[in-house]
């Protein structure tokens, strides 16, 4: 590789590739920048991909019912023991049925592998991209998903963030 080029052939190739390099950086200099200025843009133009796994939620319908059947498949699938399900047996129309009492999810233990979501036969739980999860104590990371109604703190975040336009605190689109 080293010596199979003539002196002047080497110069020609070198100049050509050097100019190519300069051309690449020249284009890059004028492309819109991708930097997100996070705390300033969190309520305006923040982009977080909607498939980003921020935390687990249990979606509810308008009456506050969830789809969970307390089968504990997610609890068994979880490698970290993040999920603890309490259920009771109730008799409905003469049939015995399992009913969810408490769905406890420890966000501090979760490693966001999504095994619980994949294993759920009812699509009762899902991950959302709400990522501002820090608190001052580990206790407040223990969540009871069936008791809470999830409201995203940041507007429009769960759909992937802000509009695809150039805003005040970011100069690029995603």
């Amino acid at each position: 590789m080293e010596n199979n080029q003539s002196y002047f052939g080497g110069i020609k190739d070198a100049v050509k590739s050097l100019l190519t390099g300069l051309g690449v950086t020249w284009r890059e200099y004028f492309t819109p920048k991708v930097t997100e200025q996070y705390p300033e843009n969190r309520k305006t133009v923040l982009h977080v991909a909607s498939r980003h796994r921020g935390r687990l939620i249990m979606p509810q319908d308008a009456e506050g019912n969830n789809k969970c059947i307390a089968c504990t498949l997610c609890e068994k699938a979880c490698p970290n023991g993040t999920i603890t399900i309490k259920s009771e047996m109730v008799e409905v129309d003469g049939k015995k049925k399992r009913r969810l009492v408490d769905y406890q999810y420890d966000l501090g233990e979760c490693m966001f592998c999504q095994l619980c979501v994949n294993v759920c036969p009812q699509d009762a739980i899902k991950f959302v991209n709400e990522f501002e999860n820090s608190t001052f104590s580990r206790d407040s990371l223990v969540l009871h998903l069936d008791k809470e109604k999830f409201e995203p703190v940041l507007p429009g975040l769960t759909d992937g963030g802000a509009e695809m336009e150039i805003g005040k605190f970011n100069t690029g689109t995603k």
Partner: protein
Amino acid sequence: MFDFSLITTWFDSLLRDTLGLGDFLSILIECVLVGVIILAAYAIIAIVLIFMERKVCAYFQCRLGPMRVGFWGLLQVPADVLKMLIKEIFFVDKADKLLYMIAPFLVLIGSVGAFAFLPWNKGAAVLDFNVGIFLLTAISSIGVVGVFLAGWSSNNKYSLVSAMRGAVQMISYEMSLCLCLISAVVLTGTMQLSGIVEAQGDAFGWLIFKGHIPAIIALVVFLIAGNAEANRGPFDLPEAESELTAGYHTEYSGMGFGYFYLAEYLNLFIIAGVAATVFLGGWMPLHIGVAQVDTVLDYIPGFFWFCGKTFLLVWILLWIKWTYPRLRIDQILKLEWKYLMPLALLNLVLMTVVAALGLHF
């Protein structure tokens, strides 16, 4: 054309005639004043350059650079300078104390000395000798000694390797640097920087227009060699963070490190400034031979012409720095001794032929 010597002669006559001071006192006052102005300009330009480098490199990497300290990050560099000033200066136990202490000053002396040669405006050159270019290259070479001493006296193997690389590289590239300046001297017929600038005052009289092909080759080689001389860019082997931590200034803290940092950026400015002076006409406006346009262009002070050209060249050098990966030491020496130096020599011959036969514009 605004002539800065109006101000200097007025100040001189103020001291001598109005205040009635003797030769000794008035020259002393003038020298001290000029020294203070030079050092202040040196520091301010370093701050501007560091900010420029951070922003330009960020833009080349599709980032925004510093944005938080002050509007658009403008106060970031002053904050860094403040941090540097209040840091503790400590010494390495087994360092060669004397050499260790004077090394940053040697680097700074070389850099400030060369800086003083730059002609800012008509009549605003601090040092203007009849052998100006010669002395400029001589003084700027003092920096090599500082780099070498810093690496040697630190008693650190990284610093030593870096100092050796720095010395090898800087001494090698001085060859083509000077050969390019000599080819400019051949065309203008003078070594005095003010004379070189005056010689570029005709219509399209800048040397790269006047000397066409050989002058353009000389400018390109000068910028490449200058980049290597200032230890920047793809030639930053002596610093090579990934291999040598920080190279020859690894063991320096506080302002000792600050001086090296300052000198590095000012060397970049000096290289660009000398290139702008010698090849792009320095403070001379671009004259195009139409009297009205030339008069209008003359109204822009030479200071702005000089700074504009210099910062344009600085930007080009930054562009090069943030495009290319670092060379190896053998590649650096190969580039100099097998490509640039022969090219500069041939170019000198070509320039001599052009000048002797009057083939220039």
